[in-house]
């Protein structure tokens, strides 16, 4: 009989909060300019992409290009940072995983949530840009917390999946990095839903990052409610990925100890 009575009687949410806070502090204490660095990257990318797609290869169908492109960049850059740090989290926190009997799920989840401060600052930048371009606040902004929450659920699911597999096959991080490189082009960052041929549109809607971008543009640029089919797909795919990640993680976590 194989019994491991892994019992941890603690407060999961309190611990999660502490671990997230720890990451924030470690990351921002050693940066003299602090949050400035969270803003620099999206602003630079926004500038470059705006230059390329309005001066070099102009696309006159898109209005307010800087805001349009930022609606794509902010979700993508969160996805990028959070997924990579989530994937590496189990190995990077080996001293925690091998020495403290906490539920291991908390490690990748806290890694993803730690990227949310970064995300919060960028969302603020995005909203300021929206106001700066005179687009104004509308009632559909109430959808924003929901669509972002779904995105976080999705990335947590992916992080659970890849962080667990990465323990056994260390190349997974490179697969993740290559996927992200390809995703930069396949996610509608500098082109819109209208540019996508009909037969590929379905695939785009099944990608939660793309779906989030469509939703953000409906809400912020067009002041309309996001398509209910987009929202539905975003919800279903996000929770499905989370469920898969959770199940795989649970299956693999018992042998982490021997492989780290």
């Amino acid at each position, binding site marked *: 009989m194989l019994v*491991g009575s892994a*019992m941890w009687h*603690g*407060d999961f949410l*309190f*611990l999660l909060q*502490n671990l997230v806070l720890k990451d924030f502090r*470690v990351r921002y204490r050693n940066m003299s300019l602090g949050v400035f660095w969270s803003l620099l990257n999206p602003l630079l990318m926004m500038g470059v992409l705006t230059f390329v797609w309005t001066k070099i290869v102009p696309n006159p169908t898109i209005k307010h290009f800087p805001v349009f492109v930022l609606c794509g960049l902010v979700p993508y850059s969160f996805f990028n940072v959070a997924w990579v740090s989530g994937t590496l989290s189990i190995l990077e926190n080996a001293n925690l995983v091998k*020495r*403290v009997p906490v539920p291991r799920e908390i490690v990748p989840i806290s890694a993803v949530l730690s990227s949310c401060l970064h995300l919060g600052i960028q969302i603020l930048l995005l909203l300021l840009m929206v106001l700066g371009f005179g687009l104004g606040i509308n009632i559909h902004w109430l959808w924003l917390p929901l669509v972002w929450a779904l995105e976080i659920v999705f990335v947590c699911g992916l992080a659970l999946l890849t962080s667990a597999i990465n323990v056994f096959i260390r190349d997974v991080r490179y697969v993740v990095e290559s996927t992200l490189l390809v995703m930069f082009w396949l996610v509608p960052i500098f082109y819109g839903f209208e540019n996508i041929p009909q037969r590929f549109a379905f695939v785009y809607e099944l990608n939660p990052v793309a779906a989030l971008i469509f939703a953000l543009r409906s809400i912020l640029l067009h002041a309309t409610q996001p398509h209910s089919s987009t929202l539905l797909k975003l919800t279903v795919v996000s929770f499905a990925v989370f469920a898969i990640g959770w199940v795989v993680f649970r299956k693999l976590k018992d042998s982490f100890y021997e492989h780290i």
Partner: protein
Amino acid sequence: MAAIVFKDVSKCFRRHAGRQLLRHRLAHLLRPSPGVAPFYALRDVSFELQPGESLGIVGPNGAGKSTLLNLATSLCLPDAGSVHIKGSVAALLELGSGFHPDLTGAENVRIHAALLGLNRRQVKERFESIVDFSGVRDAINEPLRTYSSGMVVRLAFSVAVNSDPEILIVDEVLGVGDQEFFAKSVTRIKELRRAGKTMLCVSHALATLESMCDRGLWLEHGRVQRIGPVHEVLRAYRESAPSQGQG
């Protein structure tokens, strides 16, 4: 019911020699190599510990002492046999594991307490007594990297004993503190024992072990060489290897 039950526990590690890359997996799929002989860290280890008892584990390096503690902490699962633990566990397995050098002592105390399972209210209530016990109050708001290793142990130990565990597991970390703190720790452990806590500890300091534990377990090459009252086990152990008898 017993606090800790090990029943015919074996734990083996396959020496994969770092073969964790995709090509190793593929190579293995195409042409299964005979593999490396498994290494048994523990073999058929059985014992029971009733609540309030304390067990001191001795044995040479590589005998499986730390593996046994890791199994008791539920950090890994046995390959055969079963391990049952009843009650909350606080384990001190390694000097300041989970501590971050860039955070202050106070921040590390809070994180460590949460890792051991304390909730917000408990952390708030016990924070002062943790700091008092550790004796590093003057430096509590300094980053941990400015601490000496003795100070880190003081802090880690202080959190563990103040987390009020039902089972305390200690792996040879007490030796780092100075005499005064050492004496204080031994006193606290004896208090916990009087309060009915269960303890599992590994040490090469046999005299200390003898004063803190009532039962002893001598491991040799992953097998139980002897188990019984601590005096008997330690006497036998000392006689087998006279050079190890100090402490």
